C-alpha cells in the first residue's frame, strides 16, 4: 500500500533520528549482533503501519522501543528463532531488567547516550578502533586467525584479543561515565 509523500518524509525523518537508538536497544535485549538490523527494520516497518495512530505530542523513542521489545519477545517465543539471541535464558533476564531506555529522572535518554558514545569512539586510539572492526570481519571463533593475519605469527591469542576488546569497551564506558555520570540502563 503506497503511503502519502508527507507521511513518507515523516517516516524517513523518524528512521534517521531513531535508528541508532533502536538498534542499540535491541542489542541490549540480548539479540546477537547479526540479527539486530533485521529486527530494527521490522520495528520501523511495524511503526510505519501504525504511524498515523501515533500521538506526535509524545516522544517517539519509547514508542519505537516498545515495538522493538515486543518483536524481540515474539521472536524469543518462537523456538526456531532462538538463534537470534545470545542465549534464551540471558535474553529473558535482560528483558526483565530493562526499561525502554529512559532514565528514571527523565534526564538521560538512550539516544543521547548513543551520541555521547559516538564522540567517545571518535577519540578512541586507532588500535582500539581496529580491534572492534576486526571482530566483525570474521566469526568470533576465528578471532585468533584474524589476529595472526593482522599481526603476524606473534599475534596475541584469541583469549588475549578478547580481553583487549573488553578493555577497549571499558575505555569507552569510562569516557561515557565522564560525560554523563554513572549510567543506569
Amino acid at each position, binding site marked *: 500500500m503506497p503511503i502519502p509523500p508527507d507521511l513518507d518524509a515523516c517516516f524517513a525523518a523518524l528512521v534517521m533520528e531513531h535508528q541508532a537508538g533502536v538498534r*542499540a536497544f535491541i542489542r*541490549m535485549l540480548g539479540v546477537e549482533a547479526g540479527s539486530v538490523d533485521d529486527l*530494527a*527494520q521490522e520495528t520501523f516497518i511495524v511503526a510505519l503501519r501504525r504511524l498515523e495512530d501515533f500521538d506526535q505530542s509524545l516522544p517517539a523513542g519509547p514508542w519505537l522501543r516498545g515495538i522493538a521489545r515486543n518483536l524481540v519477545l515474539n521472536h524469543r517465543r518462537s523456538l526456531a528463532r532462538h538463534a537470534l539471541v545470545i*542465549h534464551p535464558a540471558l535474553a529473558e533476564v535482560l528483558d526483565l531488567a530493562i526499561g525502554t531506555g529512559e532514565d528514571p529522572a527523565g534526564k538521560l535518554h538512550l539516544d543521547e547516550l548513543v551520541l555521547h558514545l559516538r564522540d567517545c569512539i571518535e577519540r578512541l586510539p586507532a588500535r582500539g578502533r581496529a580491534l572492534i*572492526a576486526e571482530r566483525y570481519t570474521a566469526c568470533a*571463533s576465528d578471532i585468533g586467525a584474524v589476529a595472526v593475519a593482522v599481526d603476524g605469527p606473534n599475534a596475541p591469542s584469541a583469549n588475549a584479543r578478547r580481553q583487549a576488546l573488553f578493555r577497549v569497551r571499558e575505555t569507552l564506558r569510562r569516557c561515557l561515565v565522564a560525560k554523563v555520570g554513572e549510567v543506569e540502563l
Partner: protein
Amino acid sequence: MSGAAGMEGGAVGAERMDLIAAAVENTLDDAGAAALVDLAGRDAAVLRALRLHLLIDEVAAQELLPTRSAAAFAAGLDERRRAQSDGFAFLARVRARVAAEDRVLALLSAPHAAPDAARPAGLLPNGAANAGPDTAPPIPITLLGDRLPSPWLAGSAAAAVAAGVLLYGAVGTQNNPGAGTTPVGSLIAHASANDLYAEIRRKDGP
C-alpha cells in the same frame, strides 16, 4: 554503576569479565549463560555492566563498520519496505519471467534435423543433470551457430536464447538495476551448445 566501576579496579573477577566478553561476542555456551544469569541475579551491577557492554559494542559497530552504518541500515529498510508493499507487482514480474522462459523452451523444442549422436550430454539449461558429463567449455551465444546441427536450428535457437535473455534481463532488472541476471537467466545466457543440444534431444527423444 558500582559493578562497572569495580571493573576499573579489577574488583570484578576474571570470570565475570570472560562471561560478559563471551556474551558480547556470542560465544557463550549453556554453562556460561547459566553462570552469567546466576551472577546477574546476585549482583545487579553485573547485569548493568553486560547491558552497557552490549550498548557500546553495538554503537561501535554502527560507527566503525560501513555495513552497519546509518546509510546502510536505511537502504536495507527501504528495500525491505518496497519488497513488502510491492507484492503484487513482484508477483507479476515473476510470472512474466516464467512466461518468457517457457517461450524460450517452446522455441527450442520445435522439430529439427536429427542430432549428431556423438555429441556428449551435459547440464540442461535449468541446471538439472543430464545423462552424461558436460566436458565442453561454455560457448558465447554468438558462436552457437557453429555447433548446432542445422543452420535453421542454429538461427532459431540463437534467436530464441537472445530473446529470452533480453526478456529476462528486462524483467529481472526492472526494479533492481545492476543486479544482473538471476541464476536461471545466467544459465540460459551461458548455456553451451552442448547444453542446448542435450535439451533438444531430451524433448524430442532418441
